Structures are given as C-alpha cells and as structure tokens.
C-alpha cells in the first residue's frame, strides 16, 4: 500500500514524487517511459510558444484552478529544490527573460538553468559551433539572431572538436565528452586558436549548443569563463544536455529520497470502489499486478506522454480506462485522483504541451492528505450539500 502513486516520470511525475516524499508519504512512481522532459529544452516557459506574461495569462491558469499565489509559491519551492540538487534555476514568472534557441530565434521564458544567460540587446557575441554537431549551425543561428537583435555584433567559429570521427554527434554526446578535463582543455585551446586565426576579440558572450557538460557542467562553464569569457547554452533540436541534466538530477534525487520506481511498467486500469480509486493495474491483461494506493496522481503526459491516444472516435484513456472528456480529464471526477502536467489539455494551446510553469504549479497543487481526512472532508461536503 502506497500513500501516493504517480503515473509517469516526466517533469510533473518526478516533482510530485519529490514533494510527496518531503511530506513523508510512501510514494511509488509507475512509468512506461522517460517522459517528454528528455526531448525538452530545460526551460520553464509560462505559456509555450507565446510571449504572454503572467498578467495576460493568469485567467487561463485560473481555469485550471491555479492562482497567481500558487504559481509564486511553487516557483519558489522549485528554485529551492533545484538549488539543493545543484542545478540552480534563475528567472521569474513576472518578468520573462529573452533566451536564444538552437535555431537562433529569441523566445521568452520564465525560468532557466544557470548554464543559460538571457540574450542582451547590445554587445559582441561569438557563436561557437562544434564540427559534427549537425543540430547547431552557427551561421544559421547568427543570421536568425541578428534579425531579432540587429544591434548585436555577432561572429561565428566552428571548432573541429571531433575531427575525423565521421559520425553525426548529438549535443549530449558532446556534453559527455566535455565532462573530461583533458578533452575540455583541448577544446579550449582549439577554440582560442580559431579565434586567433579569425581575429576575433574576446566577446561579451559566447553562445554554445546545449553541450556544456553532462555532470561537470559547472566546471565546464567555469573553465570557459576563466579562459575566454561568459557563455550560454542555446538548446534546440533534442536531445539537449540541459534537459537531460534536469531529468537525471530529479530522478537521482527521487531515488535517493526513497521513491519507489516501477519502470517500464504500463498502467492500464484503475479500480474504483464507492467513488474512490483503490488500486491500479499494471503489466499485462492476463496477469496484471495490482498496486494499492490512497491517492493517485496522473502525470501521464496526455497525447505526447502516451497516457491518452487519439482514436477515430475521439480521445481514449489508455491509462485508467475510465470515461474521459475531450480535455482528457474524468467525466465523473474522483476525489483522490489528480491530473497534473500535460496529462490534460491546456486552455491556452492547440497542442498538449503544458509548459514548465504549469507543470511545476500543478504538481505543487496536489494536496497530500491522509485518506481519513479526505473522507472526512468529503463527508462534510455531503453534509453541507444536504443542509
């Protein structure tokens, strides 16, 4: 028997598991895959693919029962957590920060890891490509960036880092390589040589693909900073090291705190007695495993995360097998089931991408009560209704 069972180990599932552990609950996470966090950027956007600020969008959050106060509290909690796990985040939901992406477009985000710096309006910028990383093309990034920031003075270099490997490398491959002190030193020497050959003076900011170290990112940034100058990552096409770092750090911390993980397991059914969910079934239909619980948190990521599937007759709930609305939530709400993150449709977008801030605040909104209290409150509610 678990106090809290969470379906999904994306950003929503992991944050909720950690919070439940902070409240001393017995917590299990059941997940069939790693979650969209792995394909994400590490940024926590307020409203994805929009520049709306909180004043303009708080009514949308309210539609999902998330108040401005709750957002503030949850962001504070998130930042404290990220400090504790050595992956600090900066930024604010009240003043969005312009950041450059791996395509050179500038987008506004709320929170960003400290491997990223907001993009200034003025100054000397150097965009650094790594030969072999096909997903980051420095001249392309430069040209797009200059359209949005015409006053920047931008130059580019490409460092022949993986010479002769003949492979196409991802940003994560490069990040792992950068963790090694010697490799890093060699890289810095090559970069300096390139800069000398192209007569590039020390810039105010260097823009890199999201590859500045996987575990030793602090050292990578420090070394680059000490030997050349300030740097930022520009996450783009997945996989981005910034996103993988976030996942790894949260997952590692959750395990350390005693969250029980059932990985590569798919939940396909929920048992409901008397308006309360008591267990979920995983494994296969013929020999299912029942996991008993007091509270169930659905963090199954909707269409993209795999909790829901669009079939020709509409949306289908492949997780709980309960009747759902076109928003992906229960037709008949159940008191001890909570939908968070991208598991239901957002009022602000055509797509199912909820964005980091909603994911954080909805995870934070789950009330961890004991079953008895819960029942008591429900009884009270009935009583009031009757009165």
């Amino acid at each position: 028997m678990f106090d809290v069972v969470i379906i999904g180990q994306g950003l929503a599932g992991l944050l909720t598991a950690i919070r439940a552990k902070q409240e001393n609950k017995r917590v299990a996470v059941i997940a069939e895959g790693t979650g969209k966090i792995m394909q994400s950027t590490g940024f926590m956007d307020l409203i994805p693919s929009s520049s709306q600020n909180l004043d303009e969008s708080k009514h949308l959050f309210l539609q999902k029962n998330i108040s401005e106060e709750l957002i503030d509290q949850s962001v504070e909690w998130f930042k404290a957590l990220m400090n504790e796990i050595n992956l600090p985040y900066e930024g604010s939901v009240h003043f969005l920060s312009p950041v450059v992406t791996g395509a050179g477009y500038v987008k506004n985000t709320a929170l960003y890891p400290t491997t990223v710096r907001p993009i200034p309006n003025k100054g000397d910028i150097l965009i650094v490509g790594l030969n072999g990383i096909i997903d980051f093309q420095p001249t392309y990034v430069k040209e797009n960036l200059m359209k949005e920031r015409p006053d920047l003075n931008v130059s580019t270099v490409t460092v022949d880092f993986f010479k002769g490997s003949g492979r196409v490398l991802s940003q994560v491959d490069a990040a792992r390589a950068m963790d090694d002190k010697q490799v890093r030193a060699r890289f810095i020497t090559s970069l300096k040589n390139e800069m000398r050959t192209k007569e590039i003076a020390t810039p105010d900011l260097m823009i890199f693909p999201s590859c500045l170290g996987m575990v030793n990112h602090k050292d990578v940034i420090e070394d680059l900073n000490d030997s050349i100058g300030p740097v930022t990552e520009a996450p783009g096409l997945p996989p981005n090291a910034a996103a993988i770092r976030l996942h790894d750090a949260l997952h590692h911390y959750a395990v350390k705190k005693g969250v029980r993980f059932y990985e590569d397991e798919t939940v396909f059914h929920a048992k409901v007695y008397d308006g309360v969910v008591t267990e979920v079934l995983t494994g296969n239909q013929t020999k299912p495993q029942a996991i008993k619980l007091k509270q169930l948190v659905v963090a199954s990521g909707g269409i993209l995360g795999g909790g829901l599937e669009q079939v020709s007759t509409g949306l289908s709930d492949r997780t709980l097998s309960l009747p759902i609305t076109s928003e992906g939530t229960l037709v008949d709400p159940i008191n001890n089931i909570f939908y968070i993150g991208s598991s239901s449709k957002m009022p602000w977008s055509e797509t199912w991408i909820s964005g980091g801030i909603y994911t954080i605040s909805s995870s934070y909104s789950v009330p961890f009560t004991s079953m008895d209290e819960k029942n008591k409150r429900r009884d009270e509610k009935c009583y009031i209704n009757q009165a």
Partner: protein
Amino acid sequence: MEIFETEVAVIGGGMTGVGVLRDLALRGVNAVLIEQFDLGHGTSTRNHGLLHSGGRYAVKDKEAAVESYQENLILKKTVPGSIEETGGLFVKVPDDPDDYVEKWVNACNTIGIPIEEVPLQIAFAEEPYLNRKAEVVYRIPDGAVDPFTMLVDVTADAVEKGARVLTYHEVTHIETTNAQVSYITVKDRYTGEEKQIHTKLVVNAAGPWSANIAKLANVPMKIINNKGMLTVLNNRINKQVINRLRMPGDADIFVPAHNVTIFGTTGINVEHPDDTSLQREEFEHMIMKGKDLIPTLPQIRMIRAFSGSRPLFQETESSDASGRNVTRGMALLDHEQRDGLKGFITITSGKLTTFRYMAEKTVDLVCEKLGITSNCQTAEVAVPHREAKQALENINLTPVAKKKLFSWAGVNASSIKANLLKDNSIVCECESVTWAEIESALPEKGQFNLGDIRRRTRLGMGPCQGTFCYRRAAAMAVEKGVATSDEAEIALQNGVEKRSKGMRVIATGSANKQLELMDGINYVSLGMKKGGETYV
C-alpha cells in the same frame, strides 16, 4: 523582356510533359518544357505508383489494359532504376461477385496478360497481412514505380540530350496570329520577371490544368478532375502489389514503395485542379473498405495522407469529337483539326504507366506537323540506371546510408562522391539522406525549397516527416552559403505546413503524436513564429 525561340514548347512538368520532352530530344527536335512550380507539382507525384499490368482494366476497358501491359514490359526495360518488379496479386474476398473471376480470367487470357492461380496457403505465406478468408488469388506481373525518380531521371536524360527546362515558370499567355500560335508568355514565380517563348508548336501537357491552358489559347475544353486520396503506411506490409479481384472500386490496392506501403484510393470530382484537400471522412471510409483485403489495417500505423487529381478528358458536344482520340485511355487533341488553331496540341488523361506511349503518339503528331521524319526511340533507348555500387564502393559512410546510395545515386554518383569528401553528415535518419545528396540535388539557380529537395532525395518522407531533417537541411544550407536565412525560413514555414497537412488528416495514434512533437519542437523548443511568410 527576355525572348527566346524553340521549335516546340511543352507546358507541364508532370510525367506526360517530361515524357514528351525526352521523346522530342531523342528525335533531335529542339524543345523547352515549362512548369509552373517544381517538376511533379501535379498528379505525377500524387498517385499510387502502381506499374499496371493491365489486370485492373482487363474487364472494363480492354484497350487500356493492352496499353498498360505493353508499357509495363517496356518501362521495366527502359526505366529500370525506378521500377521494382514486385509482381502482384489479385485477391477475391467473400462477397466479391463470383462471376467476375471468370470474366477476368478470360479477359486476361484474351489480352495475353500472363496470370497464374496461387494456392491460398502460398499466398498467405507470401503476404502474412492478407485476409485469411480470401477465396481466390491470382498472380500478375504488376510492378511498383517510384514516380519521383522516374520524373527526375527522364527529365535529366532529356536535358542531357539537349532539351531545356524552366521550372517555377508559369505560362500566363498564349499569343495567336492568323489562327496559329506564335509565342507564349511565361512568368518567373520567384522574380515576377516575364519572358516570351516564340515557338512553332505548343504541347499542352498540363494534366488537370490542361483546360486552363486551352482557355489561354481560346480553345474550348472540358477536363473532369477526379480527386483520389492515398495514405502511406509506416512499414512495407506487402512484398507485392495487392489488388482486389472485382470491378475496380475504392480503397482496393496496396502498393509497396521502398520501405512503406501506399494504400488507396478514392475518386471524387472537384472543381479546381489545385484542390488537394484531405477529408477525414474520406480517409475513414477508405480504412473501412481496405479492411476487406487487410483486416488489421485500422491498427497499422500511418505516416501521412495525400491526394491528387486524375485529369479525365470529356469531349464537348460543340466541338468536333473526331479529334485524334487515339484510345479511350488517353486524349490526344490536334487543335488544328478540332478547333482550327494551328500549332497547338493537347495530350491528357492516361496513366503514369502509359506516359511513354502517350509521348510517342504526341511526338509522332508533332513531327508530322513540323514535317520531320524521325522515329520514336523511347521504346528501346533506356534512361540511365540508378545503380552505383561500383562508383561508390569506397566511400566513408554508415552501412545503411551506403546501401541506399548504391541503388540510388545513379548518374549523380560522382558529384555525390565529391560532396561526401567535404561533408559526410547524414541529415535525415529515417531515409538515410546525406548532405552530399542534397547538395547534388540543389538547382543551380532559383530558390532553396525543401519540397524540391524532398522530391529528389526523399528528405522528410519517413516517419518523422521532416521534424528533424527539414530544420537541419535549412540550417546547413545557410551555413554553407547556398541559401539566405530568409530563404531558409520561408522554406521551413512552407515545408512544415505541407508536411503537417498530410499528417493532420490521419489525426489518430502515432501520426497525431508525431504532429504534436513536430509542433512542440518547432514552436516551443525552438521558438519558431507561427504563420510566417510562405510561398504563394
């Protein structure tokens, strides 16, 4: 205004037009082809890719069946790089009328199409997805044709033999003097610049648009545009073509194409040749029907859907019906005889399979008009093969990408090889497309366009539908100075929109999820702005 001269101007860069162009080139006739967008903008890249053996028409339309079978044999010989000799099955399932089988067998025998009855157990072993309730199965020499490569290769061979091609040029005017065509005006779609082409003879091969072209010449003509939908399955589920053994109807053919299967089709008359809209209901109707042959069809993952229009010529009552309607399978109109306009010929209707024959008949007429005596050579002279194993044996590339190039590079082998030495990056993992191939496919002039690259390299045709490779190709093009960032942006907006359209109609399962991911990466991760500028 730029003015140039040619003996013959061919309007339309579909299979019919490029077939005519190559035939003219082989006969030594000076010709230029004008296409309003890229080669294959029309029906020629929006079809099933079935190299008919005539079986489908055997009962209904004997002449079309004979033509198909003859051309089937000729194309296997003359365009071998674009044809896979898959063979095909005709399958009768319960409820298909019994008497059709006998009629069909007799018709095939009379025409001379070789058929052979296949024991059910063997058919099921060969095609595991086939309905186990199938009652009768026949084997027939159907094939699969890659319309993209065939179009490009036939054109390249024509150009090699002296023909000229103007893509992204729209014919906007046809000037006639004394009941004789004197010149046509074409407009560069990118620059807006106009050019005059003075010519003795215009061949209208504009497929579904041929009535529009006729109108430019003040000639009455009626074309019915019969739109058909097709869907691409994620995998190749059949080794050979699977047809239904009954009167041809909707959703009764599965054609293998490289690593996928193409399934369809439907037929709905539409007003405009540009109408390639996709309806969800039509798609569902197709899946329901297709279950009769492949019962698991609703569970099979689909990549995208697309549609194209069959140009069906209708003789109008007011005009002289004698025309030169060679067979029911195609319409060759001598407008001098039909409408009293000299120097204007229309070739339309027909099939991909019979393009060469259509071209032969057209160019026979052209030569007659121009007083040239020269025999058609396209039934014997082959287009260069795509095979390139020897030339590329020693390249440094992953085994999958290498294998693909061996049967793909063809006449481009040496340029691809040279490009690979500079950069051997793989841009599209689904279809193993290298930057080197993209570079060889880029036009010398004109705009950077991902659709043009896709049609020549298969970039973005796989399950991810360009989610990754379109961005990479655009970024690399800017990096290497072959496109400006504005061009790259327009190409991306356009490319992403076109890919999404075909995915959106599938709307369920993995295609729906893939579309969500594509939007997520473009608009959320990368911060691309929605609804930027696209092409006209």
